[in-house]
C-alpha cells in the first residue's frame, strides 16, 4: 500500500514536472518588484523594482539573494535550507503564497515578479513575517505522540511501537508538513478569525489523532472542538492547493470532522506495549 502511494506520488510529480517544463519561459533577466516596509523605523510600504539576471534554474530566492548581494543589501528575507525543507522562505509570489526556493522564475508568467510578505501573519520587515501565533496554534494541538503505556523510563523495558504499513498510510502525508505557513496564509478563515488554529495545526491534530501509537484521542478532540476550532473551516480548499509538500490539510480537517460527527469510527488499535512485552518475554522463555 505505502509503495503504491509513493509510486503514485512520484508519477504525479513527474507529470507535474513535465507540465512545468512545457510552460517554462526562458529569459535572461527579470524585474523583481519587492515589497518594502519597516513600520518600526518609520519606513512606509512601497515597492522597489530591481532587475536581476536569471537562468533557467534560477529560483525566486536566488534572484532575491542576487538583488540583496549586488543591488540592495538592506532587503529583508528569511531563508535557510534553499531546498524546500525548512519552511522559512514562504512569501507571496505574484499574489500566491509559495516557497521562494521552490519556485523557478522561468515557470512564472511575465517578466516582472512581484514578491510580498505572506498574508495573515503580522508583518516584521520587507518580506519577513512573524510566525509566533502560527507556531503557538501548532503547539496548542500537542503535536507529539502521547501514550501513557509507553515505558520510556525503564531502559530495560523499552519497547518499540508496532505499526503496520496500513496504519502508517493513515497519517503519512500529513507528516510531510514543514510548517512553512503557506496554507495558513491562504486560509480565508484565518484572515478574519485570529483564534482559528488554521489548516496546518488542524491537519496535525488529525495526524496524531489517527496515529495508532497515540491514545490521547479525547484530549485531541477537546482541543479542536471549540467555537473558533475545526468547525470554522469553510472548506475553501486553498490550503491544499498552495501546499508545497503535497499535504492535503483540507482533507485532514474533513476526516477529523467526520470522526467527530460519528461518520467514521476511529478504529485504531492502540498498541498495548506492556502486554506485548509480556508476550515477548513469555516467547523467549
Amino acid at each position, binding site marked *: 500500500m505505502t509503495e503504491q502511494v509513493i509510486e503514485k506520488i512520484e508519477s504525479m510529480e513527474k507529470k507535474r514536472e513535465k507540465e512545468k517544463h512545457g510552460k517554462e519561459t526562458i529569459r535572461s533577466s527579470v524585474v523583481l518588484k519587492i515589497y518594502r516596509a519597516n513600520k518600526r523605523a518609520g519606513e512606509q510600504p512601497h515597492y522597489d523594482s530591481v532587475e536581476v539576471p536569471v537562468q533557467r534554474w534560477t529560483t525566486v530566492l536566488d534572484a532575491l539573494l542576487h538583488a540583496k548581494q549586488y543591488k540592495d543589501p538592506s532587503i529583508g528575507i528569511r531563508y535557510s535550507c534553499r531546498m524546500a525543507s525548512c519552511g522559512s522562505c514562504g512569501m507571496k509570489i505574484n499574489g500566491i503564497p509559495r516557497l521562494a526556493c521552490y519556485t523557478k522564475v522561468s515557470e512564472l508568467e511575465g517578466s516582472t515578479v512581484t514578491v510580498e510578505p505572506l498574508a495573515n501573519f503580522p508583518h516584521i520587515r520587507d518580506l519577513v513575517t512573524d510566525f509566533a501565533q502560527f507556531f503557538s496554534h501548532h503547539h496548542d494541538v500537542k503535536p507529539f505522540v502521547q501514550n501513557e503505556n509507553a515505558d520510556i523510563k525503564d531502559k530495560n523495558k523499552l519497547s518499540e511501537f508496532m505499526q503496520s504499513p496500513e496504519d502508517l498510510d493513515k497519517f503519512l502525508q500529513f507528516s510531510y508538513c514543514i510548517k512553512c505557513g503557506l496554507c495558513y496564509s491562504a486560509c480565508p*478563515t484565518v484572515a*478574519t*478569525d*485570529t*483564534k*482559528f488554529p488554521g489548516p496546518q495545526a488542524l491537519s496535525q491534530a488529525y495526524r496524531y489523532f489517527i496515529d495508532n501509537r497515540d491514545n490521547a484521542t479525547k484530549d485531541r*478532540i477537546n482541543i479542536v*472542538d*471549540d*467555537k*473558533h*476550532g475545526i*468547525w*470554522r473551516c469553510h472548506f475553501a480548499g486553498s490550503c491544499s492547493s498552495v501546499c508545497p509538500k503535497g499535504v492535503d490539510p483540507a482533507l485532514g480537517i474533513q476526516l477529523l470532522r467526520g470522526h*467527530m*460527527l460519528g461518520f467514521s469510527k476511529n478504529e485504531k488499535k492502540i498498541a498495548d506495549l506492556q502486554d506485548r512485552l509480556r508476550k515477548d518475554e513469555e516467547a523467549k522463555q
Partner: protein
Amino acid sequence: MMLRESQIMKIHYITGIAALFVVAVHIMMRLIMPYSLSLEYENVIANYHNVPYLVLLESILVLIAIHGFNGLRIILLELRQSKAWEDGITILTIAAMMAVVAYGTRTIIIANGFGLGFE
C-alpha cells in the same frame, strides 16, 4: 447547560437537511392546485385548519429558525474575537430565534382560530 460546538454543529446540519425536506413538501403542497388559487384567502385558512399541515408549518419555522440563527451566530463569531462579543452574540441569536419562533407560532395559532381543525 453548555453544548459543545460539535453538538451545536450536529444540530445545525440535521436542521439544515430536515428543513430542505419539509420545505420541499411545503412547495409540493402549494403546487397541487394552481399556484394563484393556493394563495386565496379561503385556501390559506383551510390549510391552517389542517393539523398535519400545521405541524409541517411549525416544523419549518423551528428548523429554519435554529439553522438560520446558528448560521448568523457563526458569521458574527468570525468578525471579532473577544469573550464579551462571543457571549453577546450567543445570547442575542438565541433570543432572536426564540422571538421568531414565538411570533410565528402565534400567527399559526391565530390563523387556526384555536380550533386546531376539530371544530
